[in-house]
């Protein structure tokens, strides 16, 4: 077990180093000269040279890479041309919005996807199962950008029940900054109207972000529960006269959770990518929208920064999932363990 953890950590270091080389490499294949790009179209030659000097762009590529890495360790992601601020400062402003949205989507996935999967598995081909199968097929085939737009047409334009975008209404101002999550900050400030508004603004973006993963989780948990229900230990438990409720909670739930949580960890990658689209559709001021705005200006420091911290978050979530998995399930032995 210790061997596994050490090996897993070692591999993660390799993967992270690889990621940084790859992202750095991308900034160097851009057609055009980064110094010229940084200086803008009207810059004179001396200004370009000065920038080249200032940012170390005249040094050998390997040296530049280590300079970039040293910066990353100090939390320096470079300078954004769009906002004219350090990327790290922009992150401090935009990351909480993205995290709030992603967590809201995760809550929906767990609270809706898991029960739906379990209920479907209880009576395969029953009414719940048929309905959830339809939802699953539709959910997995619905592109995020079209779903978001469709929600806006239906709930904003036709039904007029939910806002079309943003984190708060135009005339409302943000609650005092504590966590950066408007819902929690509003609650802590005791401002219930603001909390309600923040929640209303979260509904459509979080559902849009969640749907595809929700469908996947429903499908996976259904398949796993059906598998577990067929095992000998469940039959034994039933034969011993345990109530259906006891069988479901003590035997089925725990065993079905393990594969489901692994898939949930992998869905984080889908959510982090989906943020790009959802934030554009709903003008949600997070790092996805920030990255897409940077793309329009060929502003590479923010793009690479968003790529790196998203990938890092994804890798870390999956590491945690693996470790929790290991702690929960002593039966598992990994390759190399004896």
């Amino acid at each position, binding site marked *: 077990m210790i061997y596994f953890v050490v090996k897993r950590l070692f*591999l993660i270091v*390799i*993967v*992270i180093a*690889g*990621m940084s080389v*790859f*992202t750095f490499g*991308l*900034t160097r*294949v*851009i*057609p055009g000269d980064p110094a010229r790009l940084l200086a803008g179209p009207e810059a004179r030659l001396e200004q370009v040279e000065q920038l080249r000097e200032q940012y170390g762009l005249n040094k050998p590529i390997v040296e530049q890479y280590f300079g970039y890495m040293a910066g990353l360790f100090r939390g320096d992601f470079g300078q954004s041309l769009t906002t004219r601020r350090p990327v790290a400062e922009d992150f401090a402003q935009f990351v909480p919005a993205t995290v709030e949205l992603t967590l809201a989507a995760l809550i929906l996935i767990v609270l809706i996807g898991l029960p739906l999967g379990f209920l479907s598995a209880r009576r*395969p081909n029953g009414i719940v199962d048929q309905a959830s199968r339809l939802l699953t*097929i*539709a959910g*997995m*085939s*619905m*592109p*995020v*950008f*079209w779903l978001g*737009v*469709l929600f*806006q*047409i239906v709930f*904003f*334009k036709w039904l007029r029940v939910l806002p079309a975008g943003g984190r708060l209404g135009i005339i409302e101002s943000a609650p005092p900054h504590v966590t950066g999550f408007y819902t929690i900050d509003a609650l802590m400030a005791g401002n219930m109207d603001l909390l309600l508004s923040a929640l209303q603004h979260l509904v459509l973006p979080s559902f849009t972000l969640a749907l595809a993963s929700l469908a996947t989780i429903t499908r996976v948990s259904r*398949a*796993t529960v*059906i*598998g577990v229900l067929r095992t000998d230990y469940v039959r034994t438990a039933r034969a011993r006269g345990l109530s259906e409720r006891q069988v479901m909670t003590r035997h089925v739930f725990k065993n079905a959770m393990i594969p489901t949580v692994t898939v949930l960890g992998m869905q*984080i*990658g*889908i959510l*982090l*990518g*989906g943020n*790009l*689209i959802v934030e*554009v*559709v709903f003008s949600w001021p997070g790092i996805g929208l920030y*990255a*897409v705005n940077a*793309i*329009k200006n*060929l502003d*590479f420091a923010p*793009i*690479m920064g*968003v*790529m790196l911290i*998203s*990938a890092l978050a*994804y*890798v870390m979530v999956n590491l945690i999932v693996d470790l929790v998995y290991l702690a929960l399930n002593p039966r598992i032995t990994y390759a190399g363990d004896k």
Partner: protein
Amino acid sequence: MSGSATAPSRRRTIADRLSGLATRFPINKSRTARIGLALTLIVLFVAVASPLIAPYDPIAVDSAQRLQPPSAEHWLGTDQQGRDVLSRTLYGSRISILSAVVIVALAVLIGVTAGIVAGYSGGWIDETLMRIADVFLAFPPLLLAMGVAAALGPSLTNAIIATSLVWWPWYARVARAEALYIKHEGFVDAARTVGASHLRILVTHVLPVARTPIIVQISLSLGAAIVTLASLSFIGLGAQPPVPEWGTMIADGRAYLLNQWWIVTAPGVAIFLTIMAFNLLGDGIQEILSPHERNS
């Protein structure tokens, strides 16, 4: 006379081949596969026939007809430049399907080559190739595609290259597992003993065995390839206007969302149906080819 003698025999071989295909892919065993295949054939028909069935030129601007609601002349209305939405949507199927095929072909080419070389060689070659694959898998898929497409510059070709980079590691893993599995089989040893080159062994012995799991993987990734490419187009990194691409059409039509809802609805429904067709077909093929993974 000789022509009439050979024609029936050739016809028989084609019939034989078709029945051989039907035995290998027993499509009637899976309802999902049947529905998926039917939908896919419809989408393919539209893609092939769009020049014949589209009523208008998909990129012809007609400023007198801007933002017209659906009518007898324009069944699905017109967009902000007076272009016929139905024609653009029909033509959009060509771009999505062609791009998906190219994306998957590139991913298979890179991934399968890397995978069988890694599995067959073992040692440091295997370690290096698989760690590179791990790095690609460590990025959230759409973010990886975004970064690469942004670095290469916004165009449909670059978006296709970027998207195929997202999928190659999956093929590499599948192909490597198969190569590892049969590396020590008797017939591979035999081939080596009679002096077959490594390349020959890989192509004639390892590749055919890896075929089935690769087909399953292909059928599962076509829908995802279409979504990723359209998402890149939606954020401005894929097809550029005036190309009738569904993601781009929805991005452009978003400004007219509240009053001219038909501009975004037509391409939205089209991309939903296309992805569903490929997903159902993929699930069906998986049910047929790897029944042990079926969980229902």
